[in-house]
């Protein structure tokens, strides 16, 4: 299924092999083979607000330093999130309105309606259920034999969580990561993330059809709807007609599905890998599990599960000494900002007990800051609390296989063997 073996990583240009003007970090294969780090390191040093141009994405500015990213992210008056927040432009006939890709005032209205599902008050209610599920997942894992952590833990846990937030029929929950994966495919042939555009649309319309049934069932709950995303949208006066525009309902569904799926899933996998690559940090965790909440923030920084967000400048503006023109595409590389040594001390080291671990940019900042940040942190926290109770070592025993994408920093395979506590 994977084409990983067919691409020779040696064929990808090295970061320091070209004039800086030619540098373009947007090829998904760079991320798949972890060659992007050197690209961003060089841009941060030599040209932190860097213009690139290619056939696939056109002309775009790369914003690579923490403070410049913060300046763009917090200036929503100048930097528009419409019509899309990824580097690729959407197909003209299939632009999905969703609140992450809307500006004020509509963004604010829609976000506030669904935010309570992911807010701390609701998470306190859900925590015992999530812990029980984490325990069930961990207790069902094979001991002493190799398995794929991505499939058996990362996907399973985030899928169950997402099903709860949607109050989605539990027996059909596997559909959620399926739709999520399809939503983030590319039509670039040869990629291990490839899907033909028409086939992709067809699957996403199946997702829509499924959710229309849920929408219809959940209308009419009045002023006190249940706390799931669909009930909140279907019963709020501001959004109860959202389904009149199927693209807008589908867009918001996919936002909430992808937002709650790809992100935490890959931080769960990325944390296991990072601890294996940094055995001293794993020792710190074994010696003092109270470091877990801090470690969770460090894992999220280290993984930065979504590498970028894009904006369009609505007026001319100067940034980092460069003249950005009205209409220009601006790409904030969170993955680079989180390794910016001028903002984060020893940024290129994974340190689970680092000071100010929460000061990372993986959730973005400003009005579009990740709505599910506390959901993500809670899942990772509970998972690691329960892992250290059971296992002395989650050992990575083979090379991870990564997704070819400049957006989702995803794992397809992470082979591990579990070593129970003695």
């Amino acid at each position: 299924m994977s084409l990983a073996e067919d691409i020779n990583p040696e064929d990808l240009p090295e970061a320091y092999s070209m004039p800086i003007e030619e540098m373009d970090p947007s090829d998904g294969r760079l991320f798949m083979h972890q060659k992007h780090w050197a690209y961003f390191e060089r841009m941060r040093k030599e040209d932190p607000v860097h213009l690139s141009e290619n056939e696939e994405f056109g002309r775009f500015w790369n914003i690579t330093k923490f403070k410049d990213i913060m300046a763009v992210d917090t200036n929503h008056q100048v930097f528009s999130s419409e019509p899309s927040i990824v580097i690729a432009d959407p197909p003209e006939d299939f632009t999905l309105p969703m609140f992450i890709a809307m500006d004020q005032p509509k963004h604010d209205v829609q976000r506030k309606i669904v935010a309570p599902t992911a807010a701390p008050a609701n998470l306190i209610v859900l925590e015992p259920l999530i812990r029980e599920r984490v325990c069930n997942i961990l207790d069902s894992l094979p001991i002493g034999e190799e398995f794929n952590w991505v499939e058996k833990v990362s996907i399973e846990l985030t899928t169950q969580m997402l099903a709860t937030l949607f109050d989605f029929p539990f027996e059909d929950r596997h559909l959620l990561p399926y739709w999520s994966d399809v939503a983030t495919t590319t039509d670039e042939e040869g990629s291990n993330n490839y899907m033909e555009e028409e086939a992709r649309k067809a699957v996403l319309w199946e997702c829509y059809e499924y959710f229309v049934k849920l929408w219809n069932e959940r209308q009419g709950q009045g002023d006190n709807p249940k706390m799931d995303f669909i009930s909140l949208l279907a019963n709020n006066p501001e959004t109860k007609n959202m389904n009149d525009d199927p693209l807008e309902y589908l867009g918001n569904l996919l936002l909430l599905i992808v937002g709650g799926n790809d992100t935490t899933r890959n931080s769960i996998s990325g944390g296991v890998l990072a601890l294996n690559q940094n055995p001293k940090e794993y020792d710190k965790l074994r010696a003092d599990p109270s470091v877990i909440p801090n470690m969770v923030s460090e894992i999220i920084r280290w993984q930065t599960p979504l590498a970028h967000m894009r904006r369009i400048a609505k007026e001319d503006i100067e940034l980092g000494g460069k003249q950005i023109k009205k209409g220009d595409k601006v790409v904030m590389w969170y993955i680079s900002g989180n390794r910016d040594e001028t903002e984060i001390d020893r940024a290129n080291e994974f340190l689970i007990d680092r000071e100010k671990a929460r000061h990372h940019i993986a959730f973005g900042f400003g009005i579009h800051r990740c709505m599910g940040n506390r959901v993500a942190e809670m899942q990772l926290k509970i998972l690691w609390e329960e892992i250290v109770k059971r296992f002395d070592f989650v050992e990575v025993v083979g090379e991870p296989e990564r997704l070819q994408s400049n957006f989702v920093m995803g794992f397809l395979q992470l082979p591990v063997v579990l070593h129970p506590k003695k």
Partner: protein
Amino acid sequence: MAKITYIEHSGTEHVIEVAPGLSVMEGAVKNMVPGIDADCGGACACATCHVYVDGAWRDKTGEKNDMEETMLEFAEEVKDESRLSCQIEVTDALDGLVVRMPESQH
């Protein structure tokens, strides 16, 4: 120095002498007062330093700007007294200020 009383949601009080020029948020974070996360570091960009300030102090704390108003839109349990503590600069005039924390930061 201004004496500021930080009251956690549980009721626990922390009385701290804060140097003028720092923000109310920094006064808490530098003194390990729990309940204020301040993820963005004081850029008015995350709303995780949400506190309640009694209306009587409004003249001395100054008013919210547009960005603070906007970020508070997305916080939980927002009231008239809600402020982002990174946006309140400590001055001698704030000696005696009391800020209360919400149950959680989002």
